[in-house]
């Protein structure tokens, strides 16, 4: 019972949605469910938040290594959450000054805006920017002509790297027009629109088949590990 009912729910919902795709009257059902999902995901935040509180409180109360950092995490979490939920320091909307809650939670000047602007944005942008460092170290370490496959990977990357800057067009600008396709910027285009196109298309087709089969396995209850045990 505890396992059968969810399996029935799963298959039923899935097959109804598949059929609805062919019926104009039911065209928007898939999107409706997406909306619902956003709502349920918002409810699920309670689970995540509770877990976050539990783990860090445990760490603090047990005085485990690094419990101080847990305290920092908890403080940051609670301050941000409250700033957001209570719209601290947010002015009402211009059009509805009488409604003190009508402002947007992220309006300039609010506490959440401050956290967003001066913590959230710089931190996430900096982590993203770290990729510039990792991409160079990965290129140095991994791009070695160990075998034919690796050499092809390395050579293509090399061509594209040159072709995408001023240096590349400078080096090959002397080529005559009859050999224009050998200019780096043109080689880049050929690689992108022929070889890359073929490779990406095959990957896309394969993924589509993988998604279809995985979905089918879920709907036919062949795959049910997500349901756990009784």
């Amino acid at each position: 019972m505890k396992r059968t009912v969810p399996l029935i729910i799963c298959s039923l919902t899935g097959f109804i949605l598949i059929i609805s795709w062919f019926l104009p009257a039911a065209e928007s059902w898939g999107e409706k469910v997406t909306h619902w999902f956003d709502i349920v995901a918002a409810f699920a935040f309670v689970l995540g938040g509770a877990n976050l509180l539990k783990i860090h409180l445990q760490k603090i109360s047990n005085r485990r290594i690094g419990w101080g950092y847990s305290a920092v995490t908890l403080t940051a979490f609670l301050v941000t959450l409250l700033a957001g939920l209570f719209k601290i320091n947010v002015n009402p909307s211009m059009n509805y000054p009488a409604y003190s809650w009508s402002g947007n939670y992220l309006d300039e000047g609010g506490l959440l805006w401050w956290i967003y602007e001066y913590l959230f944005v710089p931190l996430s942008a900096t982590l993203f920017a770290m990729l510039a460092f990792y991409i160079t170290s990965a290129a140095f370490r991994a791009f070695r002509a160990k075998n034919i496959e690796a050499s092809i990977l390395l050579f293509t990357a090399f061509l594209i790297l040159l072709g995408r800057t001023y240096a590349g067009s400078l080096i090959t600008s002397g080529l005559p027009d009859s050999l224009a396709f050998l200019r780096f910027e043109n080689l880049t285009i050929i690689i992108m629109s022929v070889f890359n196109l073929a490779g990406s298309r095959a990957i896309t087709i394969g993924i589509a088949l993988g998604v279809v089969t995985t979905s089918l396995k879920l709907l036919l209850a062949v795959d049910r590990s997500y349901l756990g045990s009784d």
Partner: protein
Amino acid sequence: MFEKLNSLESRWIFLMTFLAVGIPILLQKSLPEKPTPMVMDVFNLVEDLPSGSLILCSFDFDPASAGELQPMAAAFVRHCALKKHKIVFMTLWPVGPPMIQNNINILKKEFPDYQYGEDYVNLGYRTGGEGVIKLITTSLDKMYSEDVNGTSLKKLSLTKDLKHIQGIDLLVNISAGTPGVIEWVQYASTPFNIKTVVGCTGVTAPKNYTYIPKQLAGMLGAIKGAAEYEKASIIQYPQLAENPQAQEGLRRMAPQLVAHLLLIFLIILGNVLHFVGRRKGLSS
């Protein structure tokens, strides 16, 4: 020497990267970019539209990709304003509204004649991804009955007659991922034949190549695309040459060049080490 290089710690590579990017920024030099045909296609599309055309800008990116995409967005917005086009802003990303605001601030500062409600409107964010696109091609007010400030769209002169986006003259989508280019192509530009141009990050550019020229009129890829667009704008509107903010992308091409060269150097170095190491391994 060989042993030392072979066990080169990542820290030194990181330091080299830092210098390769940092020094050109401090020097503030820009390179002579030449707009490629693809970028010129996009530029001409905006340029050749009659003044007052209606342009929908969907800025689907977040602060993390703003480094790459904001110069592009700003270049589009400046160009539209110089051509006196009407702009409707929107975003499919929850963190998109500040990205729109950055560009509206440009309009406020550099084009004080541009009036909100008359020349541009900010619709803000709605959740739902492709669902939003599908709805606004049918009826705008089912998704957006009011703008980002809560003003009814019926009260703004630009949007009071706008029923859906089928009638817009150009769709500009600046996107860093999903929902973004693919959704706009699938649900707006293809079924309704809406002229669409996109600006996208270097990561997503390869995939988007498949849509050109049938479904997309043009694409700006990564910061190079932005730099070339800025260059094209400066050639057409020389007054932009005096505005350092209008050359963000161009300025970022100098660090690009040095960093690319560093990367090429490192790849070569890595391979030389690899072959030397293999020979040593064989001989011993």
